[in-house]
């Protein structure tokens, strides 16, 4: 097995003194003002506020007791579009977007052109990541060749070369028989099976949630059972095979119930939810803005609330952005013709903080926990703010107000469903794998 599962470009290790920052790490049970020293890319010291002094060569950042220092976020689900669709995103722009959103690591999906289903492709992609990625990137290989749902990829070889796991994201594995084989083969090769759930005989060509809004707009709808029946099916398969599966971007109340039941039975399942499914509904599609076209589609407010309850209760383990960049001309078409997906890395934390934390619907500590929980699902170390750990840190100003997209995006694409919204909470700095990956231009002023 490859030693390094996540890859990024080599950079100078961070030498920082973060003075008087409000450290919040739910796992370490820290929620207080501290000084934090980062030496050689590792957290070296954690002291009471205003007790540490900068050593030579250390950059001093003064949080004035106001800025929050959080363990950096982990995104288990992004599309970096490389190889083949670099006009939408590449490893450099995609990971810069991640860093700008406070993410210290991301997992890229294999629905590239060609599909990431073979060893040479994975090898070359990992080489590129080691040269270009601004934050560590891990890769999922395809479950089936060409995402065609039939023949398994050479999963064992892909794992040996460093694939974190497998997914046919965007192309749900329709055949239960094929998926069962993948689950059996997982006993040999390990690696998480991450499943996009969609019964194509139910979703057909639908371009939004099936309900009152699709009826009014005359759009073919996708019923929620297109997802939930597959979640139930595949959870049962996982239970039978004792396999480890992860359900991607769940969107409706029935799926949350199916996950809760699978977990109650002791099956080894986990699940993620996106900021857009937690914040938007079918009502937001009324204007037919193509930025709110995504799969699975935005459902009802009842579904949205069920997802939020599931996230609070732990039925849903983590938050994933499903960052899905598309070029302007690809989205500047009638709704039904537009490709699904929204970018989300740069707005995930701020949008959730604005609409859930500030409204009292979700505690900040729990949000941080869910935005960092993805790492463990892939068997990777969870970022902790504790001496001796590699520095994976996100410094945020929770009171800073900004308009999403007002100064453009780090991503190559602008198809963000939150564009134009006033958000509260700005990432000032991201330290990923011990190096400074992002620094907000305003940081100097804050630090002064």
């Amino acid at each position, binding site marked *: 097995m490859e030693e390094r599962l996540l890859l990024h470009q080599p950079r100078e290790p961070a030498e920082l003194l973060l003075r008087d920052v409000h450290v919040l790490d739910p796992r370490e049970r820290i929620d207080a003002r501290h000084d934090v020293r980062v030496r050689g890319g590792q957290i070296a010291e954690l002291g009471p506020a205003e007790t540490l002094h900068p050593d030579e060569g250390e950059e001093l950042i003064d949080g004035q007791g106001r800025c929050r220092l959080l363990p950096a976020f982990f995104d288990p689900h992004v599309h970096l579009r490389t190889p083949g669709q670099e006009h939408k995103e590449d490893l450099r722009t995609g990971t810069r977007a991640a860093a700008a959103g406070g993410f210290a690591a991301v997992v890229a999906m294999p629905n590239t052109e060609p599909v990431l289903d073979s060893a040479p492709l994975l090898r070359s992609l990992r080489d590129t990541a080691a040269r270009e990625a601004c934050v560590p990137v891990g890769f999922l290989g395809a479950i089936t060749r060409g995402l065609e749902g039939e023949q398994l990829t050479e999963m064992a070889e892909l794992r040996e070369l460093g694939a974190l796991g497998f997914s046919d994201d965007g192309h749900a594995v329709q055949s239960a028989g094929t998926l069962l084989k993948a689950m059996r083969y997982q006993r040999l090769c390990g690696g998480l099976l991450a499943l996009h759930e969609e019964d194509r005989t139910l979703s057909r060509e639908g371009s939004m949630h099936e309900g009152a809004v699709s009826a009014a707009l005359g759009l073919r*709808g996708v019923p929620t059972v297109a997802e939930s029946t597959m979640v139930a099916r595949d959870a049962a398969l996982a239970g039978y095979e004792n396999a480890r599966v992860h359900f991607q971007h769940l969107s409706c109340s029935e799926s949350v119930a199916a996950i809760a039941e699978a977990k109650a039975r002791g099956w080894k399942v986990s699940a993620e939810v996106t900021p857009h499914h937690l914040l938007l509904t079918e009502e937001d599609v009324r*204007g037919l803005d193509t930025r709110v076209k995504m799969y699975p589609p935005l459902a009802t407010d009842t579904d949205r609330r069920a997802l939020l309850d599931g996230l609070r209760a732990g039925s849903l383990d983590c938050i994933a952005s499903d960052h899905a960049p598309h070029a302007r001309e690809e989205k500047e*078409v009638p709704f039904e013709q537009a490709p699904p997906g929204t970018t989300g890395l740069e707005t995930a934390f701020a949008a959730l903080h604005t609409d859930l934390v500030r409204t009292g619907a979700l505690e900040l500590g729990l949000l941080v926990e869910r935005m960092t929980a993805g790492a463990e699902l892939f068997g990777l170390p969870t970022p902790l703010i504790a001496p001796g750990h590699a520095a994976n840190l996100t410094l945020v100003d929770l009171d800073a107000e900004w308009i999403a*997209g007002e100064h453009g995006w780090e991503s190559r694409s602008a198809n963000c469903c939150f564009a134009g919204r006033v958000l509260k909470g700005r990432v000032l700095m991201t330290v990923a794998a011990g190096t400074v990956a992002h620094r907000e231009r305003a940081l100097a002023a804050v630090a002064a």
Partner: protein
Amino acid sequence: MSMGHLLSIEDLDREAIERIVTRAASFAGVSEREIKKVPALRGRIVLNLFYEASTRTRSSFELAAKRLSADVVNLAAGGSSVEKGESLKDTVLTLSAHKPDVIVLRTPWSGSAALVASWSPAAIVNAGDGKHEHPTQALLDVYTLRERLGGIDGASIWIVGDVAHSRVARSNIIAFQRMGATVTLAGPPTLIPRGIEALGCDVRFTLQELDSADVVYALRMQHERMSETLVPSLREYASWYQINGRRLRPRQVLMHPGPVNRGVELSGEVVDSPQAVITAQVEAGVVVRMAVLYELLASAREAEPAFGRPEAAVTEPARVQAGTPAPTEGARSAGADHARARQTGPLLGRHLPPGALPV
């Protein structure tokens, strides 16, 4: 130039619908004259851009424009640059360079009329956008019913058949209700979209209570629905939902947007019966579209507010002032995007405030 668009029947209140229908009635005399033309829109350009086959709607718009003395350009998707892979946006920007006053648009895609309105300085008339809306059909149906019944306040209107795939149904549900009628939808459950009751109509899966209807509005049953197995067979559909002599009462008015499948949704005898106003609907199409074009172009000169989204007129002064110098090509598209960004109209969702970048 223009003061508004006709994108959706949603944008018209009862008063606006009545004004158009009344104006249409005043145009009815023109068709009876030997010289079937008035000079109201002389020198104006009406561009028919059709991405879908259409006989009656296109010819109806063309006749309407010609009777008002406008110049008409017809473009069909086949045989144009569309076949060479030009995007809808580029086609619209290119055609807009010819400075049409109105673009009449028919496409298979929901929301495309609103999208085109954000790109072009011309007034856009939605002549059918996918399965979404067909507002001029709703207006001509209101006109036809008013001519026949005197008014439709309190009338019970049943819309029967394939509601799921019908843009006519969606526009008519809204227009009929706005004019004071109650609307009941009836058809096989596989062709009635889930959640449609949210529009305020009743839903039935049989015609048992069809007697209560004052107006029966039958929809076209398309053969391709069979291949999608949405109904088991045309025979079974006809036996349950066909409007025929046994089901239609003498006092009921029968409507259909055309083209009719005789023997499927309607039996031959009812098509030819005096209750059917199907040809009157076609006739109404011309005068109602004349009224729509007139409202968009000519009445803007009168002080009276145009229909469509009034805020569009308020927030886009550049469009309202006649004789504004035409912007350069590059500036135009930026200007159009800008106009769209400023317009809090249907293009931007609730959470996408003005200033959001158009995609």
